[in-house]
Structures are given as C-alpha cells and as structure tokens.
C-alpha cells in the first residue's frame, strides 16, 4: 500500500514539473522566437517592455486575455471551444514519454525522470501527435467560414501524408535499438557508444521534414499562409483562444518532437559522442546534473535550428508539400529501413 501511495505522489510531482516546464517555457519561447527572428532580419525585436523586452510575453498574455471574445454568428460554439482542448491535450500528453535523464535514487526510491516508461512509447508519440488533426479540422469546421475550412483541410492533408513518412523514418533507429521504449532507446545508444544520427542521417532528414510539416513551421506553414488565407484555421478565433493555437503548434509540439528527435538520434541525455569510441563530457564539473543540461542543450539547439529555418526560407505550395511527402520522403525512409535491416544484424549480432 505504501508503495502505491509513493508511486502516486511521485507521478503527481512529475506531472506538475513537466506541465510547469512545458507551459511556462512554451509561453516564453514566444519571446525567444521574436528575438531570434528579429536578429535574423537585422532589427532589434521587442525592446520596450522590460530589459530587452523580457516582460513582453506577460504583456501579450494580459492583452490576449482581456480581449473581447468574438464568435462567428453561425458557428458551433461547443465544437469551437472543444477544438482548443483537443489541440492542447494531446500535444502536452506527448511529454509523458519523454525521458529527461538517467534513473536516480532519492530518499530510497528509484526514480526515472520520465512520466510513463511504457513499452510502446514511440507509437504513443505518433498516435497523440496525429490527434492534432481533429483539433484543426474541427476548428476549421466550427468556425463556419471559408478560410479556416481551407486551412484545416490543407493541414489535415499534410499531417496524414507526413505521419506516414515520420513513422517509417523512426523505424531505422528502432531496428538498431530493438525496443519501442524511449528510455531504453537512449540506454542502448549509451551501451553501443553510438548516437544513431551517425548511422541514420537519412532517417533524421526525413524526421526533420516531417517535424516541420506536422508543426506547421515554414516551409510547410501552408495551413496558415498569411498571404492567401490570412491565418488559416485560426481566423475566427480571438484573444487567448487565438493565442493557444500557435502556442501549441509552434512551441509545445516543436519542443516535444525535438525532444523525441534528441532521444532517437542524439542519444538523449548522453554527452558528446565519438562514434563507436565513447563519450566526451566537457560539462563533467556539473556532476549529477550534467545529463539534464545535455538534454536541454540538445533540445535547445534543435529548436533554434528550426527557428532559423522558419525565418529564412520561403513557403512551399500545397501540391509540392504532398509530393515531397509521398514521392521523396516515403521512398527514402523505406530505402533506409531496408538498408538498416540488412546492415544492423551484421554489425551487432
């Protein structure tokens, strides 16, 4: 009985920590994004509210919350609000299977810094990730307006195409690790002295394309396409309800998929890897905190890379996007699976 209580308490603490980090960081990433975008375009970005605009997200949040709540006359109010919940919940649930660091012992309890170490974690990631389609499709339909509907149909098409590509892309690392659990995948990479990026570069490229497409980042932000659709499926949303969609899509989903990419390709919390030789840890002086710092560092670098792409590239057309998915990414991922399936047993068994 005592172990059940302890398990529940530990789980609740983990949930609170993860939610706090994800939503808090998510809100502040708006500031990071605006700063990075500004400096890429050689302007200072937000400078007025607080030191270098540090209080800008709070000001924006206050403004969004206090705005009048407008609603389209012939829309469906229930579905209109439900879409927001459907967008937020699956995106945050993905963090349940993200391992933040190695197992440690505290007050006699062994704790893994991962909410649920299930054996099918990766399948859950993709299942939950593609549940986002419902939020967007329903948001578009409930708004009873043409731009949102077009935007949501585009997004649904993109997600369906790229969900296939991303699922096949992760097969390569899965074959190498021989497990679906995210925690175990990192452990295997540490045991094998190998970040899977060194042997799975094709899978990583396909994963990155799918990440950008599923989160609606440039060059795949065709569902928002300010120039043609205003902002796509969020046209009829106002105030904080409008703010939540980009928050979920651009920050929470990008963060979760970046974390999964780090787990799959960059060895999770392990330090810098020299292929087949070992690990070099320039941050050894941090002691037990070094794995967490490494994990955060890798996710941050990947996030900044995605921002860099976002504010540099132009946008694809919708037919080009689906063509890339089915004619380039899917065959590449399949070739990668076949090659890995042939080579991996030779090397490791």
């Amino acid at each position, binding site marked *: 009985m005592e172990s059940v209580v302890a398990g529940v308490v530990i789980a609740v603490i983990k949930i609170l920590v993860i939610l706090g980090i994800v939503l808090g960081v998510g809100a502040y990433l708006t500031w990071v994004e605006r700063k990075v975008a500004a400096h890429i375009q050689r302007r200072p970005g937000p400078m007025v509210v607080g030191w270098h605009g540090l209080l800008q997200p709070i000001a924006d949040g206050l403004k969004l919350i206090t705005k009048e709540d407008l609603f389209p006359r012939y829309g469906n109010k229930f*579905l209109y609000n439900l879409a927001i919940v459907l967008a937020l919940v699956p995106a945050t649930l993905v963090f349940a299977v993200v391992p933040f660091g190695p197992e440690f012992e505290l007050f006699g309890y062994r704790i893994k810094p991962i909410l649920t170490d299930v054996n*099918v974690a990766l*399948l859950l990631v993709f299942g939950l990730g*593609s*549940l986002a389609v419902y939020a967007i499709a329903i948001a578009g339909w409930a708004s*009873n307006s043409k731009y949102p509907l077009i935007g949501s149909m585009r997004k649904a098409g993109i997600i*369906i195409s790229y969900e296939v590509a991303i699922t096949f892309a992760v097969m390569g690392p899965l074959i190498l690790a021989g497990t679906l659990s995210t925690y175990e995948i990192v452990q295997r990479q540490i045991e094998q002295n190998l970040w899977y990026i060194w042997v799975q570069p094709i899978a990583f490229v396909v994963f990155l394309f799918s990440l950008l497409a599923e989160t609606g980042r440039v060059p795949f932000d065709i569902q928002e396409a300010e120039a043609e659709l205003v902002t796509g499926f969020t046209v009829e949303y106002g105030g904080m309800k409008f703010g939540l969609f980009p928050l979920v899509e651009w920050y929470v989903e990008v963060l979760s998929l970046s974390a999964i990419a780090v787990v799959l390709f960059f060895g999770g919390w392990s330090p810098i890897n020299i292929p087949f030789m070992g690990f070099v840890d320039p941050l050894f002086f941090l002691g037990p905190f070094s794995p967490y710092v490494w994990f955060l560092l890798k996710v941050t670098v990947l996030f900044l890379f995605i921002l860099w792409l976002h504010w540099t590239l132009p946008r694809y057309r919708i037919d080009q996007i689906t063509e890339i998915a089915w004619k380039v990414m899917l065959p590449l991922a399949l070739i990668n699976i076949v090659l890995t399936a042939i080579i991996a047993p030779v090397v490791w068994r």
Partner: protein
Amino acid sequence: MVRLIVFLMFSAWAIISGVGVITFTNPIYVILWLLSALIAVAGIFFTAGAELVGALQLLIYAVAIAVFYVFVLTAVPWEKAVKKGSHYRMEGVLSLPLVILLYVEMAIVFFLGITASPEGKLRAFIERLGNTEVVGSILFTKYFFAFEVVSLVLLIGMIGAVLIGRKESQTYEDDTR
C-alpha cells in the same frame, strides 16, 4: 483493485460513447463520440496489459481511420449537417433482426474462442519477451500465410486507389507547371 476500477471507468466511458454515437443526429458529434469510444477501448487494452494493441488502436483506429470520416464531414455544409430528415427510421427497424443475428454470432464466436484459446500458454512467453516481440514473432511464424495474404490485399487496394486517382487527374488540363 486499482486495475478493476480503471477498467470499469474505461468501459463505462466506452459504453456511454457508443450510446452517443447512435443517439446524436449531427454527424460531427457522432464522429467525436466514435473517437471517444475508440480512445476508451484503447484505454481498456492498456489496463489489460496489451500495450501494443492499445497503441495501435490509438494510432490506426482513432487517428488514421476516423480522420477520413472527419475529412469527408468537414466538407459537408452546416445546414445539411444539422438536418434531421435524412435518417432512415423505417430501414433501421427493418434491419433489427440482422443486427440481433450478428450479435448472436459474435457471442457464439466469443464463447467458442474462450474454450479454444491456449489458456496461459502465452503468458510465460510474454513475460520473457515483452508485448511487441510476442505479436511480431506470432505474426511471422504461426500466422505468416494469413499475414502475407492480407498485405497482398492491401497492395491491390493501393494499386486500385492509384489507378482511380490517375484517371481523375487526366480529365483536368495540367497547367500548373
């Protein structure tokens, strides 16, 4: 004990969602109830310890299949979606005997299946290998032939879909490039 409570929660959720599917008239609500029922069934699989089946239920049924219903329904205009006259009440009553027959068949298959299933034989296997590995090894040994036949059927379906799609694209003038 905890598992029983969770199971009861998920099954109540699934039954309520099932009732919702057949009582609501707005097709979008029906799809949402169906989605809710599918997620509840995935939850039941998880409580039963069949993690792989639960995750596949979520991935294939709740996302891949139900999305296409949403895809079609979002193209339905508002006024038609809430119209009530389109329900076939008479046909519903007429099809009731067939529905009951199907349910009886399902029950018979279920009870026959219980007596025929290898009771406890797989448990040691699952504990040693884990869920995913067991399903994989059974698929590629005992049910290999059926597995391959199913994949052939899917391949034929895919070729058919490509053919239909190509025919349609030829009727438009291609001036996009």
